[in-house]
């Protein structure tokens, strides 16, 4: 069990946090196992992808090349991954939990006859008798499981924003190999016909340093307006709990939690959010959590670092004022 593979798909995306996390998990695991890390690239990655992979610990980059890889297609791409792995080898395959990762991890795992674990938050190779350990929260984050896989191949999809990035190394050498892919398009058709990039107030939730988020406690769609103002003042992105999404108050792209976005901002301000465990899963990586809720028994206070027990309707306008005042005085100084 020596060969760790990070499977990265370039599908409209640049090299970013997602790729860094998969490589970071991979390089640490390869170290534990005394093995190597190979980044397998599919799609049409920009030229910067391979050098970036080396900077984050890949020993080797394998670029899959073939006509079937010109446009993303789940079944064709999973067949391509199978072919690449059968050609260059691979014991542990790591995928990000992106939309394509959620398709390709199980599809290619099935083709390879692999043990497959989705939604993992960590992997390590410190297992007596050999094998890898997979860390995976279950039951809405109420319990944590540790799974041991001893038989290869193993496929693991990593939860986004759950892996601490390794330090970037400049000018790291590495070997780039090209792997021809000869699989053909599968039966049936599958094509992208429309693509809509939705952003809340121009700032991506996943990239924001500060996130302001609202829940059922806001009581209505129109009440998100005061959070919008607060987020403008703070330069924050806006999010919401599943309850607010299910009630139709905000688009589901705002949803933070087990099944929404997983975020790791420096500061998370939860307003009118009770703190159901499935929500807390989405902010496990947040550095500082501030909860504003009028119910002092809300479970969110067990997870927050700072709490304000007040009705947000009165508190948020005051907070906006106080923050504005500080900002102006800071500029005049």
């Amino acid at each position, binding site marked *: 069990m020596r060969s760790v593979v990070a499977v990265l798909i370039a599908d409209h995306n640049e090299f970013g946090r997602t790729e860094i996390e998969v490589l970071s998990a991979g390089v640490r695991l390869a170290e534990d196992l005394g093995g190597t890390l190979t980044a397998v690239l599919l799609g049409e990655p920009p030229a910067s992808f391979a050098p970036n992979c080396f900077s984050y610990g890949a020993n080797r980059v394998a670029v899959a090349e073939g006509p079937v890889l010109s446009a993303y297609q789940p079944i064709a791409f999973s067949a391509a991954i199978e072919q690449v792995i059968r050609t260059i080898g691979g014991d542990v395959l790591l995928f990000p939990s992106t939309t394509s990762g959620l398709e390709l991890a*199980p599809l290619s795992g*099935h083709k390879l006859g692999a043990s497959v674990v989705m939604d993992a938050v960590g992997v390590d190779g410190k297992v007596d008798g050999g094998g890898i350990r997979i860390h995976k929260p279950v039951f809405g984050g109420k319990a944590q499981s540790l799974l041991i896989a001893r038989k290869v191949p193993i496929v693991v999809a990593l939860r986004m924003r759950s892996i601490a990035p390794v330090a970037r190394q400049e000018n790291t050498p590495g070997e780039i190999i090209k792997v021809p892919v000869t699989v053909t398009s599968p039966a049936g058709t599958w094509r992208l016909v429309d693509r809509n*990039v939705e952003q809340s107030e121009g700032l991506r939730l996943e990239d924001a340093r500060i996130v302001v988020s609202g829940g059922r406690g806001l009581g209505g769609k129109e009440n998100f307006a005061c959070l919008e103002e607060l987020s403008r003042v703070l330069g924050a992105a806006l999010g919401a709990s599943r309850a607010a999404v299910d009630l139709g108050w905000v688009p589901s792209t705002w949803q933070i939690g087990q099944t929404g976005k997983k975020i790791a901002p420096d500061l998370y301000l939860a307003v009118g959010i009770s703190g159901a465990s499935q929500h807390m899963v989405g902010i496990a990586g947040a550095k500082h959590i501030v909860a504003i809720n009028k119910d002092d028994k809300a479970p969110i206070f067990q997870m927050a670092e700072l709490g304000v027990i007040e009705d947000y309707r009165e508190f948020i306008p005051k907070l906006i004022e106080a923050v504005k005042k500080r900002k102006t005085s800071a500029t005049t100084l």
Partner: protein
Amino acid sequence: MHLVVCLKQILDPEIPSSDFKLDTQARGPAEGIASFVPSIFDENALEVALQVREAAGAGKITAISIGPDSAIDALRKALSMRADEAILIRQGEFPDLDTYGTARILASAIRKLEPADLILCGRESGDWYGGQVAAFLAAEFNYPYTALVAAVSRQEREWHFRRQSDDGWETIACSVPAVVSVTNDDHNLPRIPKVRDNMIAFRKTIPAWTAKDLGLEPQSTRGPNAELELEKLYIPQVSRQCRIIAGDNVDQKAEQLAQQLADLHAI
């Protein structure tokens, strides 16, 4: 048009953390801490199927579940939401059932039905978050697979799937038949069954199929995930101490919090 929805019955995931306990061997949740419900995304999947049938004005929906006898309640719920048929597959006969086995058994059952135009599963179960059965079903049938679908429409000879992408939404055109995993969205909230439909659902027969009915040897369904060992299952201890902002009135508290945010270099 035939739509097949796969449902799993799980422990109610909405119970508060304080009520959540593990069994004495710590292999799973303790018995009796909460009731059983259909897994949330599976209900979203059924809702999507119901909307497709409504838009088409015709069609048949079959709900299938592998589980213990109690899973009949999840299927009954599906019938009261107005699925046309429901089938239970008895899990007890299949030892060490993993995601590979689940998909193989479901596929055997679906092959006994009239050909499916669309197979829908929730994106993952709300207990162990397997997140694989839908993809494995696509592999079993060699059908196209699309994850995180929130809405489905039929456009002539193709399906159109509106699905969540990493930064928004995509529309995928896909040939028929196909398999999808469904995620929640404000447009696919599971409907509340009508009283009349509840009564009709209670009078319907739900067949329980066995390994023999499906022509399966129970051991043949064992897949590579049965090799995974559960080393440990535990309830993480939260040790964070929350500091409640004090103050005589709202203004003071707001001022205090702003100060704290400045100290954290947030403003």
